[in-house]
């Protein structure tokens, strides 16, 4: 089927032949070609449309006629046809209309008038607002993309809310018309011309089974025909303040040691102290108390040592020695131009960043060339080459600073001594053990975090190559053909060398030292971990374009094409022991046998061998078409359809001819005769409907089996069915309805659009009970993972641009606001246990009728005035039965609401005066909740998780009047009591807040002989929260660990020569 169409498309050019008499080109005032302009030969009454490059050809014409050239958004123009040769017609823009932009869908570029869908266009200027080295973070605050900054979800971004429960939720990213398979960090934002975000079905259904999460179409800069050579240079530097390590509240060291003294005197540490088998780690304060009790040191000395520890705050050392201001530099160069039949652009970029974590840095080098060659006016060949090479160094070990299995470190750990020397901190085993362990045979067992910084050698190189070549053929005045092929390769190699100075290597070598034989089972030498991964993606596309217009009253554009894609990714990991980086020698070790662990610190086990391989292949075959019909410049009708077949979809789906499709209608209502609202000279209504798809790569349509040993009766090896074959496994399907109004009023001073959408996701991947007759089991229950769940979102988007100019002061206000509410409408297999829903809103627990990300909490009945115990409600009565309370069902919980903002957006104000301009971006997130952490006595006693709410705890009757923090229970026999309090509604806070995102001051120097343009800008970002609903000073984006992005200052120069 596919090849039938393909060969049809290939054969088309053979039938083309016609006589040519007039050649011309239509461009706008900037010299850019005007596509789809209507050229009317007045006397002969024949019309043609211009090609994407603005060119047109008129056949069998006579001289001394008149050409009438018109295009949407431009004033029409009459040109006498008095001479042979190439005609160049320059069209001037009309004033009242939509922003003059050409949006790109990845398959075609079209003026907004010809579209009905919801496109969001981000131009170069908006992209350059932020000086970040990452394309995505440059989109934050200037688009309606929502970035989830909450600790666990860091980096997740969505367009119009999440469209899947457990499938891939990331929007599709398309770079230069092809889905981008490599790491996004390999894109240099300085190479980007514009970004188009495809939001509704009419906009994105051309991407079929991968469109449901929305599509971000990135267009890189290119050269232009007949343009003067120009050189653009851009340099900028960003300095970011050290992160505020004191942001997360912590219990002061003195209080923590005080608590340890209490626990010690109650015998809490006695089991650990008497454990001389595995020697579990004990903090220095507990060691002092132990030594005192054992009579090894005097009470006075102990008190003195303790009081000196009380003065230490680990954050001081961390902030001083492990963090620094981050520093980023970007250099970008682009040389571009073009002759009549050749365009070229060469760009080079070099970025380097030293991260705020000492020891972490990275750099990136990008090279790109983009040329187009048009030997005949019916043929254009384009070739794009792109090369990125980046390198990352990760030496910072601050995240490894944990003691024992606690997951935290005691707050009075001292990392660096008075003379700047590294000091040891307690890591895995007690100091009295490691002081003497091995009688000098072993390597030092002390953990000195500050030394680790210098010993780490963790490097990753990431390289990406892209070759993109395309041929455009004008077949005749209606048809053109586009052939495209792209090869993309990414290679990532990580090498992490743990030399013998690192604690990691010393610890492993010591653990595997066998004193009985005096053999080091892990040889003395470095441990080298290497991993590599690669991605190879091939894409081929054939597309036929058809364009025709009739007397400029009707215009029809159709594209149809076929695409084939293949992506292979492979990765592997391996480790070398006893590696010597100077001689490149290594040792073989025994990975097979259980080897004794030194001093019985752990049961015998084999030497760790993190060896792994993976290989994945994705194949796609797709057919697509898109048509738009314009009638009297008032009505636009669009249709789009795409059919995907893939090796992950089942046979049933591949064979069924069900495309994902969309249709749309736009009505330029202000052009109707009955429109009398003179205050609103431009109004356009749009209505679209259609379907998008989404793919879950973890699913397979084929049967897979898992082997096991020793069958019943026979002891033979046997196998069980692991993955149920599902020939009808298909993409998740999202129906999207979009209604929009575009308007312009007050002499174009106020422009904007209002969009309302409904998204209905069906066939979402999830678990569902299954008819037992099918025999299908998943994990022992008669359930099935497949296309079973549904959800619904609705939302509103408002964008407004207002020109509030006052005299020579230009003032521009842009407002963006989004409301998105996504709820589960169907989910059959529900585990109703409360614990599945008490997840801080960081994970999805689908429940019919509730938001995807929701905050649930235990109903709170205050503290018991006699004991300070937290109280909840069990069957409507106040209860302290914590075991029953934590085992309630979700129906007994309080439903607080959404855990992600229902409303978010930005307000950008820009003031320009002569060559100066000042701009400020205020962002807001509203209508959501979060659950703040508080003290958990179990965490406090066992895991060194010291929340300062401890100081606010209930201590005596009457305290319940001003605190909700439960009393301390010792021994803490009931962890459910902690869990109940930490999931109770008293800890739920409103997340609403407004933050000042950035302030930009720029100066554009007037051009002179050496440069035509030069711009200086000074940018301050992440200025912080200016209003928040919670009274605890918590940044709702960082409520659960981590710290807010520190303020950064950038200085940039851009000039064009």
């Amino acid at each position: 089927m596919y090849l039938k169409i393909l060969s049809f498309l290939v054969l088309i050019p053979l039938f083309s032949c016609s006589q040519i008499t007039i050649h011309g080109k239509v461009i706008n005032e900037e010299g850019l070609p005007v596509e789809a302009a209507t050229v009317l030969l007045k006397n002969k009454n024949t019309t043609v449309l211009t090609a994407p490059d603005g060119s047109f050809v008129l056949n069998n014409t006579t001289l001394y006629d008149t050409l009438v050239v018109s295009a949407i958004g431009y004033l029409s123009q009459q040109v006498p046809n008095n001479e042979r040769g190439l005609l160049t017609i320059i069209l001037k823009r009309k004033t009242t209309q939509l922003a003059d932009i050409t949006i790109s869908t990845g398959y075609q570029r079209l003026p907004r008038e010809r579209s009905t869908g919801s496109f969001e266009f981000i131009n170069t200027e908006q992209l350059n607002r932020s000086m970040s080295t990452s394309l995505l973070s440059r989109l934050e605050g200037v688009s309606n993309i929502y970035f989830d900054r909450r600790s666990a979800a860091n980096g997740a971004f969505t367009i119009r809310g999440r469209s899947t429960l457990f499938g891939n939720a990331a929007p599709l990213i398309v770079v230069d018309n092809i889905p981008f398979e490599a790491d996004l960090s390999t894109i240099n934002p300085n190479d980007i011309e514009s970004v188009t975000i495809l939001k509704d079905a009419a906009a994105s259904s051309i991407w079929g089974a991968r469109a449901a999460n929305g599509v971000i179409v990135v267009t890189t800069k290119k050269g232009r025909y007949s343009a003067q050579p120009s050189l653009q240079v851009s340099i900028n530097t960003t300095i970011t303040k050290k992160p505020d390590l004191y942001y997360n509240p912590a219990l002061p060291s003195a209080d923590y040691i005080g608590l340890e003294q209490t626990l010690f005197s109650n015998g809490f540490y006695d089991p650990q102290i008497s454990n001389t088998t595995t020697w579990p780690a004990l903090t220095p304060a507990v060691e002092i108390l132990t030594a005192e009790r054992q009579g090894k040191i005097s009470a006075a000395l102990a008190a003195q040592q303790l009081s000196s520890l009380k003065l230490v705050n680990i954050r001081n050392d961390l902030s001083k020695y492990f963090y620094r201001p981050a520093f980023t530099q970007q250099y970008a160069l682009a040389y571009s131009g073009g002759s009549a039949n050749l365009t070229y652009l060469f760009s080079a970029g070099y970025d380097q960043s030293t991260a705020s974590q000492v020891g972490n840095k990275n750099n990136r080098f990008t090279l790109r060339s983009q040329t187009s060659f048009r030997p005949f006016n019916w043929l254009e060949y384009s070739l794009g080459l792109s090369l990125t090479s980046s390198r990352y160094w990760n030496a910072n070990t601050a995240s490894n600073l944990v003691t024992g299995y606690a997951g935290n470190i005691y707050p009075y750990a001292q990392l660096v001594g008075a003379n700047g020397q590294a000091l040891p901190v307690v890591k895995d085993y007690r100091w009295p053990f490691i002081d003497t362990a091995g009688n000098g045979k072993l390597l030092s067992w002390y953990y000195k975090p500050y030394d680790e910084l210098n010993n780490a050698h963790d490097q990753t190189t990431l390289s990406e190559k892209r070759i993109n070549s395309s041929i455009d053929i004008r077949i005749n005045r209606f048809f053109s053909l586009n052939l495209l092929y792209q090869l993309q390769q990414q290679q990532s190699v990580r090498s992490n060398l743990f030399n013998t100075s690192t604690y990691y290597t010393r610890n492993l070598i010591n653990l595997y030292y066998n004193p009985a034989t005096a053999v080091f089972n892990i040889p003395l030498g470095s441990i080298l971990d290497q991993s590599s991964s690669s991605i190879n993606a091939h894409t081929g596309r054939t597309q036929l374009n058809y364009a025709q217009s009739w007397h400029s009253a009707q215009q029809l554009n159709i594209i149809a094409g076929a695409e084939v894609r293949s992506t292979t990714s492979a990765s592997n990991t391996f480790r070398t022991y006893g590696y010597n980086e100077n001689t490149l020698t290594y040792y073989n070790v025994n990975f097979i046998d259980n080897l004794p662990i030194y001093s019985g610190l752990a049961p015998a086990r084999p030497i760790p061998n993190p060896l792994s391989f993976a290989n994945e292949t994705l194949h796609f075959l797709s057919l697509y078409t898109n048509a738009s019909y314009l009638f009297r410049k008032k009505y636009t009708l669009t249709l789009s359809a795409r059919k995907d077949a893939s090796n992950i979809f089942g046979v049933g789906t591949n064979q069924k001819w069900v495309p994902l499709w969309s249709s749309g209608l736009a009505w330029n209502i202000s052009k109707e005769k009955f429109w009398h609202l003179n205050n609103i000279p431009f109004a356009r209504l749009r209505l679209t409907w259609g379907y998008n798809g989404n793919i879950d790569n973890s699913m397979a349509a084929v049967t897979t089996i898992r082997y096991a040993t020793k069958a019943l009766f026979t002891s033979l090896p046997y196998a069980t069915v692991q993955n149920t074959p599902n020939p009808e496994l298909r993409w998740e399907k999202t129906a999207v309805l979009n209604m929009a109004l575009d308007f312009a009023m007050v002499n174009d001073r106020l422009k904007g659009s209002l969009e309302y959408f409904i998204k209905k996701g069906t066939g979402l991947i999830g678990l569902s009970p299954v008819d037992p007759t099918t025999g299908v089991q998943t994990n022992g229950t008669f359930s099935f993972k497949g296309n079973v769940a549904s959800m619904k979102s609705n939302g509103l988007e408002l964008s407004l641009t207002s020109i509030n100019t006052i005299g020579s002061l230009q003032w521009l206000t842009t407002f963006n606001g989004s409301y998105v509410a996504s709820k589960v409408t169907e989910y059959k297999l529900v585990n109703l246990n409360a614990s599945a829903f008490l997840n801080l809103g960081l994970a999805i627990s689908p429940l019919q009728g509730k938001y995807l990300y929701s905050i649930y909490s235990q109903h709170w009945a205050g503290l018991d005035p006699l004991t300070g115990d937290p109280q909840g409600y069990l069957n409507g009565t106040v209860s302290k039965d914590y075991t029953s309370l934590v085992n309630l069902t979700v129906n007994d919980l309080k439903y607080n609401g959404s855990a992600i903002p229902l409303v978010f957006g930005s307000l950008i104000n820009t003031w320009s005066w002569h060559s100066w301009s000042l701009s400020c971006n205020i962002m807001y997130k509203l209508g959501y909740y979060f659950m703040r952490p508080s003290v958990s006595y179990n965490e406090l006693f066992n895991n060194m998780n010291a929340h300062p709410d401890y100081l606010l705890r209930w201590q005596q009757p009457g305290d319940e009047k001003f605190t909700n923090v439960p009393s301390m229970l010792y021994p803490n026999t009931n962890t459910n009591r902690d869990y109940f309090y930490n999931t109770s509604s008293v800890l739920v806070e409103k997340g609403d807040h407004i933050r000042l995102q950035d302030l930009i001051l720029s100066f554009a120097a007037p051009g002179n002989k050496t440069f035509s343009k030069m711009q200086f800008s000074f940018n301050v970002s992440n200025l912080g929260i200016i209003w928040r609903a919670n009274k605890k000073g918590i940044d709702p984006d960082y409520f659960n660990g981590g710290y807010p992005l520190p303020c950064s200052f950038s200085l940039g120069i851009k000039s064009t020569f």
Partner: protein
Amino acid sequence: MHKIKFLTLIILLLAISACKKFLDTKPSASLVVPQTSSDLQALLDNSTLLNASWPYATEIGSDDYYVTTTEWETRPAAEKNGYIWEADVFNENERNAWSLTYNIVYTANIVADALNSKIEGSQSEINNVKGQALFFRAFAFNQLLQVFAVPYNEQSPATAPGIPLRLDADLNKKTTRASLENSYQQVINDCKLAASLLPDTQAIKTRPSKQAAFALLARTYLQMSKYNEAMQYADSALRINAFLLDYNSINTSATRPLAQFNREVIFHAVMITSNTLNINAKTDSVLYASYNINDKRKQAFFKLNTNGTQTFKGSYDGSARLFNGFTIAELYLIRAECRARLNQVNEAMNDLNTFLVKRWKTGTFTDRSAASSAEALALILAERRKELVLRGIRWSDLRRLNLATATETTIKRVVNNTTFTLTPQSPRYTFRIPQLVIQMTGIQQND
């Protein structure tokens, strides 16, 4: 122009074959997609499922045993209600006679479906796994028919509902009940095809052989009261191997006198364990009394409890699990019964005597004789019941024998001083389908 057409055609043909291959590529290399006959054999060697998940519903309602009220009280609803022939049996636990047996069907279908695409292996290996898969599916359908469909009767209307026949693993296909006639026909067709593919015997008795397929055919035709066919297939099976275990050679006083995989076993299978049948069941006193003192089975099959009751210990699994596979003795009994019914009295009695002499104490057995086919039949049916105790066969026999007034039985249970009665024509001889299945599929529920 012709050239272009021709070229297009060639490109098209190449493309279609290329497309299929392109879209058939395995998405992840770590997925084990069954590709060889040994992968499929491994699926069929999952004996926990395929040899030990057979429904106890083929025995729970039979008259071979009883339990005390105290014991009965402690059992889950399925066993309790199954014991007293209540309608509500399989609604408490989703792992039941329906779902687990269809899980066997599903696994067999996975294997059969995989054989539709290219599988590496010799032709005989491929035939072997295909035959085994068909046998397992047929045996599962057979068991489901004994539990969830009305007894087969020449006079039963063509519209009588059978069971859902799931013939591939595609879970998207709708579940519907085939007719009773078609359901039995499916068992027979699968079995015949299996018999043509399988080797005469298998080295491992958990794998079905040609002889097992013949045995299943004989048993199925007997359940259908088609005595001619049943006789022929019992005969075919016996031509492969007719060895009978001499009970004088086994230690009948042992805790488990009969060994697993002994030479009389054709195919090994056991029922799902239930305390009612595996532990608590006491032998029906009339049944126990019917064994002659010289019949070695009286000692080999039953343990005497201190309170004077008897507990079955004669499972061919050599354990407390209840064997419901196929033995050569069953074939002799099928052939004998069929011959008696077909008026071949002498041949029938020959079969019976050949079999019985191996069960009796050496030198004590004298050949039985019968003057009429009815007399022969009565003798044979009595011996059939004595041989096939707690084998998952008695329930089917009751269903079949109740079709004729001459052989019908009314059975009773007493629990908590209440007497429950199962009349020969009771609809309770057909279990009700789990309500969950009815809700999800809308198929017809049994009376």
